[in-house]
């Protein structure tokens, strides 16, 4: 249940972040949040980002961010989306795997022999594939 609530939080937070613009907030660097950004209303607030990015942002002119800053923001946004997509994909793969395992278990309770062993083999293959991409699924 805790996992479910966690995923729910992740999903809704992910949705909120993406709908709200592109707020990137690495948890490991809260100190830099105090540093004002010269583009605070541009929809791309970078908080706690690399020092170089922060410095460049605060040193920017009043005419808008330099192209390299915009490029860096774009890369950050893209990376954030990739991470979110990867997390979502692994969550989806894990829950499908769990359902597949349960179905195979019940199938084997009803039908021994090749029907069961085939289902087991497919589950094993799916589990290995999920593990190789996502690591072990939370139980």
């Amino acid at each position: 249940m805790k996992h479910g609530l966690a995923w729910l939080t992740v999903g809704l937070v992910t949705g909120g972040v993406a709908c709200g613009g592109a707020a990137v907030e690495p948890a490991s660097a809260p100190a830099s949040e105090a540093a004002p950004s010269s583009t605070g209303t541009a929809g791309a607030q970078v908080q706690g980002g690399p020092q170089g990015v922060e410095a460049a942002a605060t040193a920017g002119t009043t005419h808008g961010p330099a192209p390299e800053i915009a490029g860096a923001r774009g890369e950050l946004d893209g990376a954030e989306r990739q991470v979110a997509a990867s997390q979502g994909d692994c969550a989806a793969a894990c829950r499908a795997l769990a359902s597949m395992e349960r179905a195979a278990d019940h199938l084997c309770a009803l039908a021994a022999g090749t029907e069961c062993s085939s289902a087991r083999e497919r589950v094993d293959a799916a589990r290995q594939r999920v593990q190789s991409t996502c690591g072990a699924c939370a139980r």
Partner: protein
Amino acid sequence: MTLRRLPFGSLSLVAGALALSGVLVVSQCDRHVSAGPDQADDAAVVDTDLLAFLSLARAHHHEANLDEQTGDVAGAVGALQRIIDAPKPHAGTAIPEVEEVLADTYARMAELRLSQGDADGAKRDVESGLAHATGPTYFRGHLLEVYGIIEEQRTARLADAGSPEEAAKARAHARELLEQAVDIQESVIAHVLDASAGGDGGPSR
């Protein structure tokens, strides 16, 4: 079948469905940005309605969690039923996020009813849920899994009641449903991981 035997990862699954819906809302946001001004306004209203429904669903799932923790299964089913009965955003249009929430809510209700020995009610829930999950998605696979378990239990009851022929039919049906569930979830996993490896960022259900 007891609650213990039914993996209550189902709660995780429901929440996961809602989480996925949250992600899917993102893609809707992206689409809305590219729409014209008027369309964007309309879309914003739709998003608000959708988010309100998802929030309501989340609240009722939490309520069901609390009911379950106190052993009030009927209360949990009632909480989930309020999701089913709630007004749906953009009524008359099948919104994928809403369909998925409904499909998973029906699956959870079916599991709860089954845990109370209400196989007929569980079957009705599964059949209702399947109407909201027609494609080869996780949600359909999960519903078929639950349906297979319902039929597995029916097999045992018929056998105990001295109806071997009916029991054999129920067993065959259960095997068919469970095999379908395995097939679908296997394809879901392949699709999700292929999409992830390809980086197409498409929705993974």
